[in-house]
């Protein structure tokens, strides 16, 4: 058995470009999912019934349907239905955000639920409105308490962006496939990609844990 990494090494710029796209797609997905997830959670918890019922249905459906299925549906089927053609990158961003927002919503709901009622009352007795209490008191604490879960969300997102290779988004996974196919060195190519993903994912989760260790007390009343 012989290893030959030269093909992979020769394509390092090509692969690095893929990695850049992986990170860009991950960052955008995480940011959008956090915003949408908070909105969905608030709508579900405090919104009127006509809003909360479909939101719960949406959340539970995303727990039931694989992200791959959402991805190919939005990329291949949605244009047929709406005439709206999304380029692969944007389709992936929409699909991943749609899927991951549901998870964020569940995490936000648990986070808000875990902030003691006394904290809300302490805000109310200062004369704050309910919206002010949510914005200034409850949400910031909930977000700190959610840090470990947000860490998992970031990790899941980075891993899920690899699935975007299926719709030919030229991110790291897709470019690894290309290099593997052109060089006939699949083992080397995929092994390198695995190590690269690990080197990104492992520190990310560790850093979030470390951050939580340092500021977690600011979320505990």
């Amino acid at each position: 058995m012989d290893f030959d990494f030269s093909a992979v090494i020769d394509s390092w710029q090509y692969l690095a470009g893929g990695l850049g796209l992986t990170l860009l797609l991950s960052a955008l997905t995480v940011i959008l999912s956090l915003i949408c997830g908070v909105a969905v959670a608030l709508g579900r918890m405090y919104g009127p019934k006509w809003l909360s019922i479909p939101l719960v249905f949406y959340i539970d459906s995303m727990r039931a349907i694989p992200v791959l299925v959402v991805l190919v549906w939005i990329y291949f089927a949605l244009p047929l239905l709406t005439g709206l053609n999304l380029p692969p990158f944007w389709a992936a961003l929409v699909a991943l955000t749609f899927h991951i927002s549901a998870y964020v919503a569940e995490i936000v709901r648990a986070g808000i639920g875990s902030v003691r009622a006394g904290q809300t009352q302490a805000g109310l007795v200062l004369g704050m409105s309910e919206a002010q209490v949510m914005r200034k008191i409850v949400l910031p604490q909930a977000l700190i308490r959610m840090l470990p879960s947000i860490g998992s969300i970031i990790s899941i997102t980075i891993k899920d962006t690899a699935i975007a290779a299926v719709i030919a988004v030229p991110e790291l996974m897709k470019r690894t496939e290309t290099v593997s196919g052109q060089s006939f060195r699949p083992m080397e190519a995929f092994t390198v990609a695995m190590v690269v993903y690990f080197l990104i994912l492992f520190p990310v989760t560790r850093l979030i844990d470390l951050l939580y260790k340092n500021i977690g007390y600011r979320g505990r009343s």
Partner: protein
Amino acid sequence: MTAMAAELQNRKNADQTPVVEYRSIRKLYGEFVAIGSVSARVNKGEVVCLIGPSGSGKSTLLRTTNALEEIQGGDILIDGKPLPPKKADIRKVRQQMGMVFQNFELFPHKTVLENITVGPLTVLKVSEQEARKRAVALLEKVGLSDKADKYPANLSGGQQQRVAIARALAMQPDVMLFDEPTSALDPETIGEVLNVMKRLAEEGMTMIVVTHEMTFARRVADWVIVFDRGSIVEQGPPAQIFDNPQADRTRDFLSHLGWDG
């Protein structure tokens, strides 16, 4: 009617409109009657202590004052005006009442200073500079000037409760409500909180205090209300309640606590 006359004679500012007046308050949790039909008044500058066994309804009554608990019957008058039904108006009333909780409820994500400034900044919309100035002065008053930039988690229970008092005072309230402010404290830090409260009373703050600290009630209160099973058993000046209780249940309660005057 004689009791009423005596009350009028004995109490501070009894000729003025009471700051808080409870008229036949009724509070139910489902079928359970938390408060039967309770009437009481708090005059300007008075320290009124609510005492009685756990679960007797004294905390519940306190929490109806600023509408943290809804009532099912009766009226609460603040400066002679009934508690408004609208949420926005209740916020106005709450701004005039400081409240201190058993579990402090400091905001853990804010520093000590930010805990004190958040109310004036968000609700009263005072300037950053003004809020800061007030907070610094209040921290000095409660003896915690050196803790301004610490987070609540770094403070002892007694220190946290003193910050909570400063936070309430920052709104410059007319009345202070204390809901068992020392019940969650280690014995050695109870004194520092009671001292702050005592000083506040001496400055003429109107205070309603739910407490198990009988010594504090005896020394600082102007008026003591004894609760049992959702109703008032007896009320009067501390000398009467502690030295010459009129009701058997007051005597029972005090003797259970080992109170001997």
